[in-house]
């Protein structure tokens, strides 16, 4: 009854500039789409092949709504992703967990459909819908049979125009959110370790370091007027990206979007937001007790280089070299030590290496037998990082890292049915960069990583004084985890 024993996160991507985040990029009147044939360059291993050719049509409406169309009729379904540039990083102080609470509220009702839940409307078509909140965005995604595209566009336009946000809706959804927190955190053996506890340790700026699930007292204090103000500020066309991927007629869809989303008025400018982190000069560490856990663990985070830089791509390969796959250094180390568990980790543990904007962690963690001291485990694994700072990786090792990163990318987008990965990438690039074609330059960045760059990146970003550590201590004690 074993779970799959291989780790390695599924990648997708994004390279973003902070300055563009809140730009409402109106490209003049009309609805002229740029037709872009997006061709992913052949990786080195497939030198003679052009592997992918994803069609993209991109335009920005007069009200600032960015629209990405990606037709593909392989399967008779269509996926609609709506991303808003509001995540838990940007929620206002005193409103912890609010971005996430609002995500739930947004399903509750809208003027035309009334109290019938959004997902019930979608389900009646045979589709499904879901949503999640991350550091820098809240996303809503639905997949429906191709003949139901009108229904989903109408339902999205309905709630984007006039959602029902009453105290009654808040009460119900607050209860659901509380249960979500109980399920995912409070009633789990390791509670908020490491996904919540590590960022709270590693970051100093409140925007990055607060409990994004929210303090229950903040959630309890939420009112309908708060929700309406939040909606007016953040759920605006100029802070949103609409992606449609799958089996549809592009001309018809353009008309629908122009008619149904075009009239939604732009919102106010977005508030100034400083998410920058001070430079870390000393190790940060917390030892936290988790009463329901039975084994100790360590979680370690380092600050990522700015996105899009050569060092950022080097970190992608360092992630592969150290953690991803059985051949990764840390996996081999813990296997040879016989710990019986694997090292987990990734860039942006709550998303992927591409769908964030701002300070971010590369992290790793392991639950280990109680017969081994956590500090010894930390020293052992950090020894591999020290090696990266001192020695050049071999050509074979960097080739393996590139191949693994490439396969992870392919896995993440290889779904002609629901297209979750492709929609995520296109939306992220459009939202943060106003340029979904950035998808095309990721492999180039990875290809240019050299052993020297990896060593330099490790020396610059992976020194002991730059790390943050949260040690999970099992059993009862004074201090509980977050």
């Amino acid at each position, binding site marked *: 009854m074993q779970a799959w024993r291989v780790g390695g996160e599924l990648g997708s991507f994004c390279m973003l500039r902070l300055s563009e985040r809140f730009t409402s990029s109106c490209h003049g009147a009309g609805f002229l789409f740029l037709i872009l044939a997006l061709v992913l360059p052949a990786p080195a291993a497939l030198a003679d092949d052009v592997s992918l050719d994803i069609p993209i049509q991109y335009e920005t409406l007069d009200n600032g709504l960015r629209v990405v169309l990606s037709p593909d009729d392989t399967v008779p379904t269509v996926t609609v992703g709506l991303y808003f540039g509001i995540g838990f990083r940007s929620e206002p102080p005193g409103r912890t967990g609010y971005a996430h609470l609002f995500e739930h509220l947004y399903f509750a009702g809208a003027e035309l459909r009334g109290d019938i839940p959004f997902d019930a409307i979608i*389900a009646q078509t045979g589709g499904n819908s879901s949503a999640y909140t991350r550091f820098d965005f809240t996303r809503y995604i639905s997949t429906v049979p191709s003949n139901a595209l009108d229904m989903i566009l109408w339902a999205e336009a309905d709630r984007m125009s006039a959602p029902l946000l009453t105290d009654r809706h808040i009460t119900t959804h607050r209860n659901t959110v509380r*249960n979500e927190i109980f399920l995912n955190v409070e009633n789990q053996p390791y509670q908020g370790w490491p996904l919540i506890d590590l960022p709270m340790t590693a970051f100093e700026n409140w925007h990055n370091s607060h409990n994004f699930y929210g303090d229950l007292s903040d959630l309890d204090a939420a009112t309908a007027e708060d929700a309406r103000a939040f909606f007016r500020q953040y759920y605006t066309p100029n802070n949103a990206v609409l992606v449609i991927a799958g089996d549809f007629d592009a001309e018809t869809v353009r008309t629908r979007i122009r008619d149904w989303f075009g009239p939604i008025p732009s919102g106010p400018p977005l508030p100034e937001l400083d998410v920058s982190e001070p430079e870390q000069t000393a190790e940060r560490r917390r030892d936290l007790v988790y009463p329901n856990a039975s084994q100790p663990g360590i979680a370690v985070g380092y600050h990522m280089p700015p996105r899009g830089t050569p060092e950022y791509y080097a970190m992608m390969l360092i992630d592969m070299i150290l953690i991803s796959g059985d051949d990764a250094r840390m996996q081999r180390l813990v296997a040879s030590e016989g710990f019986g568990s694997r090292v987990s980790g990734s860039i942006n543990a709550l998303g992927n290496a591409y769908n964030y904007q701002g300070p971010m962690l590369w992290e790793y963690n392991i639950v280990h037998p109680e017969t081994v001291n956590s500090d010894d485990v930390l020293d052992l694994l950090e020894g591999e990082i020290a090696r990266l700072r001192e020695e050049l990786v071999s050509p074979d090792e960097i080739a393996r890292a590139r191949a693994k990163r490439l396969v992870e990318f392919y896995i993440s987008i290889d779904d002609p049915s629901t297209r979750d990965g492709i929609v995520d990438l296109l939306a992220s690039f459009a939202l943060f960069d106003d340029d979904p074609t950035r998808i095309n330059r990721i492999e180039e960045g990875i290809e240019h990583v050299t052993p020297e760059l990896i060593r330099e990146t490790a020396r610059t970003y992976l020194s002991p004084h730059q790390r943050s550590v949260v040690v999970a201590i099992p059993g009862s004690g004074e201090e509980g985890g977050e």
Partner: protein
Amino acid sequence: MDLTGLCTRFALPGLLALSALFAPAQAQPESERSAANAHLPPRIEPPGPVPGFATPNNWTVELDNGLKITFIPWGMTPTVDIRVVVRAGNIDEGQNTWLSDLTVEAMAQGAGGRSDDEIAEAFGAMGGSLSSSVVTDRSTFASFVLAEHGPEALALLAETVREPDFPPERFEAARTTIIQLAESWRQQPAMQGMAAVNLYQHPEDHPFYRTIPTREQLTGYSLRDVRRFHRRHFGAGRTHIYITGQFDADAMEAAAREAFSDWERGPADEGIDAAPQVGNVVHLIDRPGAPQSTVFLTYPLPGIDSKTAPALEVMDVVMGGMIAGRMLDTGYSYAPQTYIDWARGGAAWTYSDDIDTANTVAAMQDVLTMIDYSRFRPLGTEGVADWMISRFIMSTGARFSLVGQIAFRNAFDLPIDYLDTYADQIRRVDEHAVLNLAREYLTRDRLTLVIVGDLDQIEAGLRALPALQGARFVRQDADGTLH
């Protein structure tokens, strides 16, 4: 902690049935519309039947030794996903809980004269890794690699499945891995609950009776036990390979023949059944201070090969929609779900959930009322078939679930056209068929209910629920003591 499911929704067509029991949701009267959406039509007509979609092309080749290879050329990227599935799992362990897990873990420690490090590097160079897993009735060895490495990856997988070296110096590491896994299961309320369900679904001498092995069990297994398990339960006749993605079919078939043709057919499947049994029991596990109650409510059903299987699936969807809709309407829980576990010789329908402690009794009252209701009045099934067929198309159109669908068909020896005729089978189910099934199978005396939670808060209320008055109650203290 899994945050990826944040806000996944469950509003299934069964919401229609829900409205018969609780206050129905209403659309806004047109006269109350604001100007904000004046540009939108007041409503959209239903889209009509789901567009058709043929199951993607796939074919199967059988070697002389009984090994089967299914080719599924479906995928958008130049990668190939190879899964070697062997009909060997927990059901073959007898009383030796998780001996199959330990065997598979030990198999991954070295094969064909290569060390685990060498195997890891070889797969890594192809962009992949060796994955292995064990479930109730099968073991899977798999890798996902760049397409051009398909034949090479297949050969490597063959070494692991056929010629594990079981290096003695790595055996303790494999054992520790399985001990760690068992420990992680023991900590989780969902796993504690599932383990309790199995106490009532299977007799004491069945391999599934014990879900999580004790540490003593795991430390007692020897390398000899592991070798014997491999010898007795692995062989070409019990193996099915699935190759999915973009690949050169001729080259892959040649590689498969080269790697597997001379493997012995091996022992036949012993054919042990695992049909869930009737419980008529409520098992409460104390987890003092727990903010939620983890619930498993389950009823035995006929198996996937029964004529009623399509109607059972419809029943699950309708019931699931109704229950999930109620939970989300009230905020009692975040991730309610229902599902059918198809097993060898039978099945079980299950509602599982995590309900906040304060509302546990009220929520269970509602759930049991809805189940009672389903036996007395037809639940609305309008739209259910289209919903199910749509979900089926999404599943068969997606690369990773397509192979799962095909493997499911094969695992239960279902007709070769099972996937092609699924939509028609579902469309033929009517609400009276569902009503009859609910009457036969969702009766109070057939349930097994397990709840892991803070019993000080919930036990008295649960014991007083009318629908549970005929059931035997078992209380399990936090230290494991049973009453």
